[in-house]
């Protein structure tokens, strides 16, 4: 009986492997849990990596080195920071509304992490494929504003309150422009034989695959403008420079999380970065072809497929080579011995991952994830770049930008996209009434 149960369990687990659906759609709870765990772990690693990368890239933009002490080239700095944050005293201001003060960071984190259950890392690499995928993502990510408002209010202090008011107004207004840009991409999905569009994240990417063009290039320059609107709105939505008014350091000290410290503060930090990844995923899915590799039409054929499928492994091998190169360049001093060994060890790990990714069975499955991640990483780099380049907008200018520039632009693009999509039939009805 016990053996039978085990057999059934194994069969249940294996049954999913042959299906070509997401685990949520296939209804396989085991793989749903596996995927959720994978997404969670991957996201945490991405946030840690992003933390290090932001400091390093920003530092190099600003003629300095950034973290260098903890681990080789400061690689262990995020971990050291995490330990520091967890060990810090958890301060709750005396006059704070304790219950809401507690709930707020969890609300923000919840909103930032929940959206990832519909993000399609590949045709089957998503926790589930919802019929209202994009609506769900926008909706749930808009919940984080509630957490921010609560955090600002519960702190019972003026700077957090102003920060919270600023960010709530900002996020609500930019959601409108963002929504319009998203709608114009969704209109593009309906340009197929049956004339029905889709809100499903996987469906949107598949529509781009079927139409043979990424939506950013569709109806040039309409797709590009819609993408631009979204790209601006998403920076505002995540409260990042140059729209970081809510946590403007020089004005409001730290905005809505001024009174937070330690673990709770780190939750805000985590939420901010995962929200950045989330909105970038939306942009990638809607306009940049999601998991599709570049130039699927131009460079088609099995040879090109093979070459592009080698990219993930080669990238990791390249990173490993960089590690070895820098390990060799490390100063030959006993003080640096551990760091050199650590860097080389890190290179070995990266190299092994790269080698595993070159195995045919693996590389077919991971290449989608790789292309998706690479596109998202581009956005992450842009975020850092903005931060290094732009001064901060003022509140009224921000509102002006949202309501007087992006919103009319979004409406115009939506109307023009719809017109362009219907143009063949309009033409038809004009010539053949």
């Amino acid at each position, binding site marked *: 009986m016990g053996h039978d149960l085990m057999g059934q369990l194994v069969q249940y687990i294996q049954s999913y492997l042959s299906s070509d659906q997401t685990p949520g759609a296939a209804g396989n709870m085991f793989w749903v849990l596996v995927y959720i765990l994978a997404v969670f772990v991957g996201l945490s690693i991405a946030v840690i990596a992003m933390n290090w990368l932001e400091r390093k890239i920003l530092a190099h933009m600003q003629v300095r080195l950034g973290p260098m002490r903890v681990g080789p080239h400061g690689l262990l700095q995020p971990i050291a920071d995490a330990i520091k944050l967890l060990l810090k005293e958890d301060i709750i201001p005396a006059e704070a509304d304790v*219950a809401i003060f507690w709930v707020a960071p969890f609300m923000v984190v919840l909103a930032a992490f929940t959206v990832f259950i519909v993000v399609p890392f590949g045709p089957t690499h998503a926790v589930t494929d919802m019929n*209202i995928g994009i609506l769900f993502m*926008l909706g749930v990510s808009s919940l984080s504003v*509630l957490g921010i408002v609560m955090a600002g209010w519960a702190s019972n202090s003026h700077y957090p309150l102003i920060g919270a008011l600023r960010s709530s*107004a900002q996020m*609500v207004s930019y959601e409108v422009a963002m929504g319009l840009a998203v709608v114009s991409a969704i209109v593009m999905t309906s340009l197929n034989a049956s004339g*029905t569009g889709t809100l499903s994240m996987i469906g949107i990417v598949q529509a781009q695959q079927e139409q043979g063009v990424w939506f950013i290039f569709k109806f040039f320059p309409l797709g590009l403008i819609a993408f631009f609107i979204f790209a601006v709105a998403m920076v505002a939505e995540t409260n990042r420079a140059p729209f970081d008014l809510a946590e403007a350091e020089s004005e409001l000290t730290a905005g809505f999380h001024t009174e937070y410290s330690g673990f709770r503060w780190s939750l805000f930090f985590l939420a901010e970065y995962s929200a950045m990844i989330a909105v970038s995923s939306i942009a990638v899915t809607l306009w940049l072809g999601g998991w599709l590799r570049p130039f699927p039409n131009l460079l088609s054929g099995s040879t090109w497929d093979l070459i592009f499928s080698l990219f993930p492994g080669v990238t990791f091998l390249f990173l490993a080579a960089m590690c070895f190169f820098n390990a060799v360049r490390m100063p030959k001093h006993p003080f640096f011995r551990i760091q050199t060994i650590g860097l080389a060890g890190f290179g070995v790990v990266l190299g092994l991952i790269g080698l595993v990714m070159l195995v045919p069975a693996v590389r077919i499955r991971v290449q989608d994830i790789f292309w998706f991640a690479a596109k998202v990483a581009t956005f992450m780099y842009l975020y850092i770049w903005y931060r290094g380049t732009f001064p901060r907008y003022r509140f009224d200018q921000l509102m002006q930008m949202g309501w007087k520039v992006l919103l009319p632009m979004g409406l115009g693009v939506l109307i023009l996209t719809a017109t362009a999509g219907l143009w063949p039939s309009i033409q038809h009805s004009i010539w053949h009434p």
Partner: protein
Amino acid sequence: MAVDTAFNMAPVATPFFFYMLSGIMLIGGILVITRKNPVHSALALITVLLAQAAIYLMLYAPFVAGVQIILYAGGIMVLFLFVIMLVNIDRAAKERTFNSQWLVGIVAATALGGLFVAVYTKGNNIFPEHALSVIENDNTQKVATMLYGQYMFAFEIASLLLLVAIIGAVVMAKKRI
């Protein structure tokens, strides 16, 4: 079970989720009307709204669920919180929570509740026993077709209503226009 297929109203573990969500909603609703601090009330109301969105999902109405989250939880409630922060609640916190006619209110509500109970116990069998089976996947498409087809006029009226509401709100809230 034979009933199961005919009663194809919801996916796995529906009773559990239904009771959990209704519990959350009822507790949240009670908190909304009893909390002294409006921010706590708003938090409770948000919980109610989110639980209700989940119930919409159980009722195979994903689009309404999405609209509920975006509009209610992400939009209207933010407006509420915004206004609560704008108006000074220090004084409100010191005052009585309920007004002098709370007894009248309870009695009226009880009477209304009695009416509901009467209707539901008497009229139970006017509803068909078996819900029709629907496909979840084209819900959005169906809603869209209906909204821009049969209900086009109502849709336009709603947009006009929103316009009027915008102007009204601005006129009300702004001192100098």
